């Protein structure tokens, strides 16, 4: 999963935030409720203890302790109400302790004596040996003319605890479940909302310089995505315009450059041939003529590129055997290699039918071979191969020449790119040979790649889709 996608980030943030809010809300609810229930229990104990003090202990001098004990039993019936009541004199001697509750959940006699300082009013929780917990409210009571007493009223905390535990369990299970439901729901919603983005993306991927007249689908949803696709379409329209303009410009420019170049070349030629001309001047004019000729070549090649860019009509396309074309072309160029004592070998045995303009594909072979021969020192070797691999014909031209520096490798198919910036003396090429190879390949739906190790040689590979065998075998036209 792409963790940087809008879908993922949106859902992750939203699920994360919701989970944090859930945890905070749950925790505060749980803690508040626990405090409230404990305080309530405590207040009830304190109320009862105060009642005992004010009504009974305040008159114990007159009524006697036995009367007080009887009244406690009558009023509070601690055994039936699961309560703990203990009355102790100031010196620590026990006056009364309630009996065990009917359900026997704890034994009041086991409750340890409170050893801390006896404040006027205090509370504590007491863990019992049976596993139960008592919340005990203690009251130190002393009134004028009466002895002082330590009154303890207790009640089991366990119902509160079990209720809290139940609540905790519900929160702990319910909240993650809610978070999962919200995450999945959110994911589905986001996915639905972003589906048009996927459609726009895949449609945009299909648009190249050859089909700039195509447009992206526009969902009439009225939302931001409709605006986006409309805006993108306007941008493509502007690109289309700009591209058409630049194509027209290149075509017009190469056309309009031809006439002045003809004049320039013609005049220079006539001057160079003038027998009365001073020799030094003739040399300079000859050099100008060379430049004019070079310029003409660039214009020619630019014109070829312009035509390829504009997506030449496919009406001239035929089905032909690449292996055969490679063999004849290699043979036609063999003497160029021989001249440099380069061994030129061709391995193209299996026929490989491809579809296209065979004269253009031949241009690819010629340019690649010419390059290989040019950049391989004498007595080197150039190998040409045609292979077939998964629905494609592979044309490989490999040499053991000077190679291409790694920094230059990504740029060699660019127009006017030169590996060594200075035009080598005698090098009449315009720096467009490989750009033309690339443009022809693109027009044929083929790919061209270059591999090289400086000093060890270069390998160029053209990958052309094989012609579909199902279609009727049209003329296997092949020019030699």
């Amino acid at each position: 999963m792409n963790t940087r996608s809008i879908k993922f980030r949106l859902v992750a943030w939203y699920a994360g935030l919701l989970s944090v809010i859930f945890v905070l809300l749950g925790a505060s609810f749980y803690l508040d409720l626990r405090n409230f229930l404990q305080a309530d229990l405590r207040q009830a104990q304190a109320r009862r203890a105060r009642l005992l003090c004010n009504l009974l202990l305040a008159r114990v001098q007159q009524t006697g302790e036995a009367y007080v004990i009887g009244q406690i039993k009558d009023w509070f019936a601690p055994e039936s109400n699961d309560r703990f009541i203990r009355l102790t004199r100031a010196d620590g001697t026990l006056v009364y302790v309630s009996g065990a509750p009917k359900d026997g959940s704890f034994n009041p006699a086991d409750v340890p004596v409170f050893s801390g300082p006896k404040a006027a009013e205090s509370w504590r929780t007491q863990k019992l040996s049976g596993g139960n917990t008592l919340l005990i409210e203690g009251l130190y009571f002393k009134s004028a003319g009466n002895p002082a007493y330590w009154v303890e009223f207790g009640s089991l905390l366990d119902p509160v605890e079990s209720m809290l535990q139940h609540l905790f369990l519900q929160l702990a299970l319910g909240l993650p479940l809610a978070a999962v439901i919200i995450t999945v729901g959110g994911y589905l919603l986001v996915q639905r909302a972003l589906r048009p983005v996927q459609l726009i993306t895949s449609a945009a991927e299909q648009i190249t310089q050859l089909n700039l007249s195509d447009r992206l689908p526009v969902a009439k949803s009225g939302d931001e995505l409709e605006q986006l696709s409309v805006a993108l379409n306007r941008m493509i329209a502007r690109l289309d315009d700009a591209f058409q303009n630049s194509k027209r410009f290149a075509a017009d420019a190469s056309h309009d450059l031809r006439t002045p170049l003809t004049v320039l070349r013609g005049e220079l030629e006539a001057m160079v041939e003038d027998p009365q001309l001073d020799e030094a001047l003739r040399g300079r004019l000859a050099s100008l003529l060379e430049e004019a000729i070079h310029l003409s070549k660039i214009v020619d090649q630019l014109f070829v590129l312009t035509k390829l860019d504009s997506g030449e009509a496919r009406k001239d396309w035929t089905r032909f055997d690449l292996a055969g074309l490679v063999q004849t072309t290699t043979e036609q160029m063999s003497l160029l290699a021989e001249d440099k004592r380069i061994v030129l070998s061709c391995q193209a045995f299996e026929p490989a039918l491809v579809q296209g303009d065979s004269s253009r594909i031949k241009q690819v072979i010629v340019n690649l071979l010419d390059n290989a021969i040019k950049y391989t020192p004498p007595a080197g070797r150039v190998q040409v191969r045609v292979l077939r691999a998964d629905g494609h014909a592979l044309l490989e031209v490999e040499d053991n020449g000077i190679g291409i520096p790694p920094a230059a490798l990504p740029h060699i198919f660019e127009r006017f790119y030169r590996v060594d910036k200075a035009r080598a003396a005698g090098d009449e090429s315009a720096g467009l040979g490989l750009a033309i190879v690339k443009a022809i390949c693109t027009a044929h739906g083929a790919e061209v790649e270059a591999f090289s190790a400086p000093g060890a040689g270069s390998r160029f590979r053209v990958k052309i889709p094989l012609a579909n065998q199902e279609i009727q075998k049209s003329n296997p036209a092949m020019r030699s």
Partner: protein
Amino acid sequence: MRILLVEDEQKVADIIARGLKAERFAVDVCHDGPQGWEMASTYDYDLIILDLMLPGLSGAEILERVRRKNSQVPILILTARDRMDDKVSNFERGADDYLTKPFAFAELRVRVKALLRRGPVNRSSILRVGDLELDRLSQKVKRAGKKIDLTGKEYALLEYLATHPGRVFSRTMIIEHVWDQSFQGLTNIVDVYMRHLREKLDDPHAHKLLHTVRGVGYSLSDEAAA
């Protein structure tokens, strides 16, 4: 020899006319289509050089009208376009040769001469230039009675030159004829083949038949180079 030049670009027309006049041709120049057609239909020219983009009447239209008149005058097309389909459609209309701007004047001169001296094609099966003999049926080549082994391309090259002994062929003409358009950029391929041909043909003999014409191309001739 009288040549009609129809070219709307004043300066280009000047250069061509000047160059051809220096070769002792009579040249009439027109700068627009209607005038060109008037001249072409009125006078009997030995050659017409026609630009395709003309004001008033296109070069293609003039070409068609001349051919409809059933005139056999050789026509050389000049154009600033080099679209393949243009080339084909103009040859179909009856153009004899085709030159794309910018061109070298030497190239134009060679082609003009080739068109003017075209004459009947030598159809005999044996071609002879001096003591060189080519058998077109068996593709065997002999010089002074001694057999010379040539590769297929070398033979094609030699035969092309031998069809018109003494005529100068430009490198571009040789590439167009012996190779094809794809080799247009590699004019040195002609030089390499010519050198190999020369080694086999001329090196063993004092009298040379293959001549390099500086800045233009090659010719095969029994006479010493001009």
